[in-house]
């Protein structure tokens, strides 16, 4: 139920509340952007029940993958 899917904002659409076209792989859907009005085209949002709940933080995502890489290096 709390399933959320990350998708890329392709385009902002006119509307109240604001809407956007979001790509999940090759599937594109209209998503409500009321809770993330500051999101920019090209950024990724986490979508749940037709609404974007939050914007993905690219730097934090990279940091996690680097942590995993460091962990790999630490081990014999």
């Amino acid at each position, binding site marked *: 139920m*709390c399933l*959320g899917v990350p998708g890329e904002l392709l385009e902002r659409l006119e509307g109240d509340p604001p809407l956007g076209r979001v790509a999940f*792989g090759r599937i594109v859907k209209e998503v409500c952007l009321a*809770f993330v009005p500051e999101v920019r085209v090209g950024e990724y949002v986490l979508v*749940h029940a037709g609404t974007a709940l*939050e914007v993905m933080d690219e730097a934090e995502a990279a*940091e996690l*993958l680097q942590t*995993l890489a460091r962990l790999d290096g630490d081990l014999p």
Partner: protein
Amino acid sequence: MKYVDEYRDGEKAKPLVEAIHQAVTRPWSIMEVCGGQTHSLARFGIESLLPPAVSLIHGPGCPVCVTPVAILDQALALAARPEVIFCSFGDMLRVPGSCQDLFQVKAQGGDIRIVHSPLDALALAERHPERQVVFFAVGFETTAPANALAAHLAKRRGLRNFSLLAAQVRVPPALAFILESPDARVDAFLAAGHVCAVMGLAEYQPLAQKYQVPIVVTAFEPLDLLQGILMVVRQLEAGRAEVENQYARLVRPEGNARAQALMREVFQIVPRTWRGIGTLPESGLGLRPAYADFDAEIRFGLKGVGGVESSRCLAGQVLLGRLKPTKCPAFGMECTPEHPLGAPMVSAEGACSAHHRYQPASSNPLLPAASAR
């Protein structure tokens, strides 16, 4: 898909698994709160990668599973009314009420629509002013913002034919209840990532302090879950009890302030009955008096409607982590996903359904080499 595939890399899992093995010196019980995490742990066979001293306990974070029979019976009564278009997420349709389920009502002519968003239900209400559209508002704090938005827009647009049957639940009171119970055996929690994307970390600090349990907000992909488990066992082994955030790429410490503000405008904290568990104070969200016109329970006079649950289903014990799904006498016998006795066998996120679907794990799809250990 970006933000998914890179967290399913089996090669990257190896060092995490090794680090968990190196960190663990004593037995620990870790509860993953969210049904989405339960599903992922079963699907990727993660339990088989962990040291035997680490047990994973499946938590109550499956809204389909905890929605009480009484509210399901209200849903069934509403869906059977000729003037009603009853809208629900798909996984609620096979959950047994006291006599039948929503699919049976649909087969008997009830106008039941599966929607992906409460905003789809709102659009139906605008297209069908002659009908009453009811949305079955189940879910945790993840789902509450979208439901609040639907009610807010309905009020602003003056819709008189849209209402919510509210069965919203909150995570923190359930964790407190589990920790307070006399046979509590949870040493730490993997908190639900998407709930915390909305609510942030603040509600979890007092729990970690009061009960001295580590709480790590964790995402849903296999590498995320392994890293969350590693963070938890490092805290446990060091005697720390802090709130940490594994899901920093999405979860901000303060959560989403806009979503929280709208939730506060539309909902108030209420007691809620959890299926198989009982009534927990402050564990639900109900519509505020200012939104009473959009409350299906009031609009259709449903207070007091509703029956009792089957005593053959031990879901409450499973949801509290006291019983492994496979140890239930009905598991796979009189209770299967096709013919469920209780809700945890219905939803893909239910612990019983996840175990039934993915076990026994003959091989681990994520990391075959390590599972042969």
